């Protein structure tokens, strides 16, 4: 499809998909309930036609039984949901592979990729869909609450260097054109950075939509700092090396490597070892964006931050 044609010209079908890992039912139910409200409002506004929710469970044991899913689907149908799909993967695939597997069976026009505990504002879908009526827009990102992402965006157009998939709306055609997320390279973090950069390389705009809000349950430590779990510490260190390599920045690979070697935690040093091992085994992705058209490495981030 030409990037000049808008992906949305009338009511579109929607698939919302999330990858679960060790979540509790209560938070999933809260997310489903609020998403159903957003679906209902979007249908009333004529923004969407059918809407389904797909959950892929990477936990060690299934979170839901079939009858529990049936009960939820029955209840949510009253609010306009067409289908609630639940797949137990029986393996921890990671977010990138999990979403790829879920989207492989998708038929909907639009895919809302989001964390499983995202609580949607009632007008989330209406607001996320609006920019897709403009040419070249290939990904629209929601504003997260209560901790807003600090990366920069154009206050007039919403253009942003990359979009988090904590809550992002992507036309299925774009997902298919890009071959989904690069799950071979990214297990848990930066798969979204990579996806956005590839979308931009393909000529699409990536847009941040401040009027589309969603709560992502992040909290602060007793010291008032952002909580960083062990998984984030490991996988974001690994992803930092992978991104630098994939986007043709060997200088940055060396710099991050040095920093991790000299000041990294044990967890981060393990991530470095994994990268070096893959490098030795020639299992790293082929570098792209040699002209550095989209990739940014700024103060250890992947976009200029507003604070």
């Amino acid at each position, binding site marked *: 499809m030409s990037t000049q044609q808008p992906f949305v010209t009338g009511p579109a079908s929607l698939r919302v998909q999330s990858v679960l890992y060790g979540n509790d039912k209560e938070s999933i139910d809260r997310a489903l309930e609020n998403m159903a409200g957003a679906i209902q409002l979007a249908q009333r506004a004529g923004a969407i036609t059918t809407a389904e929710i797909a959950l892929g469970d990477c936990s060690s044991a299934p979170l839901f039984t079939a009858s529990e899913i049936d009960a939820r689907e029955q209840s949510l149908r009253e609010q306009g949901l067409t289908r609630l799909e639940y797949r137990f993967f029986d393996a921890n695939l990671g977010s990138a592979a999990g979403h790829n597997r879920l989207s492989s069976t998708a038929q909907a026009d639009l895919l809302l990729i989001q964390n499983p505990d995202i609580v949607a504002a009632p007008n989330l879908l209406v607001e996320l869909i609006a920019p897709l009526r403009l040419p070249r827009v290939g990904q629209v990102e929601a504003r997260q609450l209560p901790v807003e992402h600090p990366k920069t965006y154009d206050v007039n157009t919403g253009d942003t260097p990359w979009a988090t998939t904590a809550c992002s709306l992507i036309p299925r055609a774009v997902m298919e054109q890009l071959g989904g997320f690069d799950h071979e390279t990214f297990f848990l973090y930066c798969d979204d950075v990579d996806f956005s950069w590839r979308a931009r390389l393909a000529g699409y705009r990536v847009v941040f939509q401040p009027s589309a809000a969603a709560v992502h349950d992040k909290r602060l430590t007793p010291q008032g700092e952002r909580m960083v779990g062990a998984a984030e510490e490991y996988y974001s260190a690994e992803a*930092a090396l992978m991104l630098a390599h994939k986007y043709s920045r060997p200088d940055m690979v060396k710099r991050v490597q040095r920093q991790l070697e000299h000041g990294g935690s044990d967890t981060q040093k393990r991530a470095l070892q994994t990268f070096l091992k893959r490098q030795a085994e020639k299992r790293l992705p082929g570098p792209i964006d040699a002209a550095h058209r989209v990739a940014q490495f700024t103060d250890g981030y992947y976009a200029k931050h507003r604070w």
Partner: protein
Amino acid sequence: MTPIVYRKPPRNSGPAHALELIQQLGGAAGVLLDVGAGLSSVVERVTALGLRYLAIAADASSCAALRAQGVECAQADFSDARQLRECAGGDSIAAVSLIGVLDQLSEDSEVLSSLRTLCAGAAIPLVVDANNALSSERLLSLIAGTGGQRAARYSASALDTIMSESGWREAARSDQDSNPDGEAHRRSVVLSTHSLLNQFFRKIHQGAEESANVSRFVRAYLPAQRKSTSLPAEAARPFLSIVMRTQGRRPGTLRDVLLALAAQSCDDFEVVLLPHKVDAAQWTAIEEIVAEQPEPLRERIRLVRVEHGGRTTPLNVGFAESRGEYISILDDDDMVFCHWVETFRKGAAVAAGTLLRAVAVEQEIESREWSNGVAGYRTMSGFKKTFPADYDLYAHLTQNVSPPVCLAFPAAFFHELGQRFDEALNTCEDWDYEMRCALTCGVTALREYTAIYRKWKTGASSYTVHPLEEWQENDRRIVSRLNGQPHLFPAGTVDVLRRQQAWIRALEQQNAELQAQLHGGAPAQRPPVPPPGTDRPVRYDVADEINRVMKRLPAVHPLLKASLRKLTR
């Protein structure tokens, strides 16, 4: 019929107040039917009003005794309106009095109902009196164990209830105030109005009980419709009532804060949303935002429109509407984390009745219209730790560092102790209320970051709407009131004051030595005096050095920076 139990009333029970009301409402002719003969000692003063005095006694011996004193008296069953009417003979009844009787009756409602039957046709006034069961004097005497209390069955609200249920509406009152004087008051630290204990009790009690200073209610009533004041079966109370003011100008932040409530990990709350002085379009927009909310949240939101008053008025309205055990103020531009309610509930589970204080970070925002035309905003900064994680009561006496969003007030402070927001304040109203609550209930510091206090860089806020002089004047008003009252301070206060006094003395001495050095005296040798309770660990100096180095290395990966910070924490 259930027999009426009636004992003779004490004599001289404040007849002047009753006579004042009889004169006011009873007219200048006819008979005063004095049920129970409470005014028999002032017959001459009744007749001086132009009224015929007729005492009604419940038993023959009382009747005979009164007649022996030359008082005109008839015997009747107080709960029989027909008998009472017959006592008056053919004279018109100007007024009925029931003085010194109510506190003695076991079947008061039957008597009041029969009197209403007697009085209803001609709108005859009824003057009653009753001792105040909840006067400060009475309660203090009970605490002091001084005894000698007269019977008292009614508080102000209980008297209102029985009168309205019996078909009377209040027409006038001439309540008798307490007179806290006398030998017992000079001997007792509880009763003496000069003691701190007495003053503190009175301060609290006067907030809780409007009639705390009334020793005896003396009131006139006219017949009216009977009112049923029985309370409906109480619905389950939520843990937290969230009082949210909005002027309808910030639909963007209002949507956001409602979304944050939809995402709470604990849903044991209700929302009292108070649009204040909004126009029709703003009201409609607010209604639409509420209607869009998911049902579980929408059902817990009550819209209460407030058309009067200043910035503080909706708080009193909202608190009055609140049904929760605790009440929090959440403005329409605040933001909360998902465990905001849960944290308060955990705090209340271990320290019920205290003011709960979690921690907020500050974040700057500026107004900006979103692409959908809605008045939205743009976040301009990360989180700033402006507000200390620990609660320091004494520091709060000079400056408020606890925005309302991080506080939960025990509802009883408003509903039982009668503490209201000062509506004369258009700024600092939260600080005033917080300090009064802290100095009465104590504070439980929860030390958990649960909220974001938004500071507007551009756009209207209380900082831009109210001039500096108004802030300063309000500050003076609050401090002056606090300073004029006795307070409770928590355990540990003595140590705090002692440390501060010692510090002041040390600083004064250091200052004297520096002055001496400046003017040619001996040089000061001692190191600077650290402030009390702030001994600085060596690792802080190490952390400062590391931070200085890292600032010079902007390209250092943030994860590495975070790791270094952990080492120095």
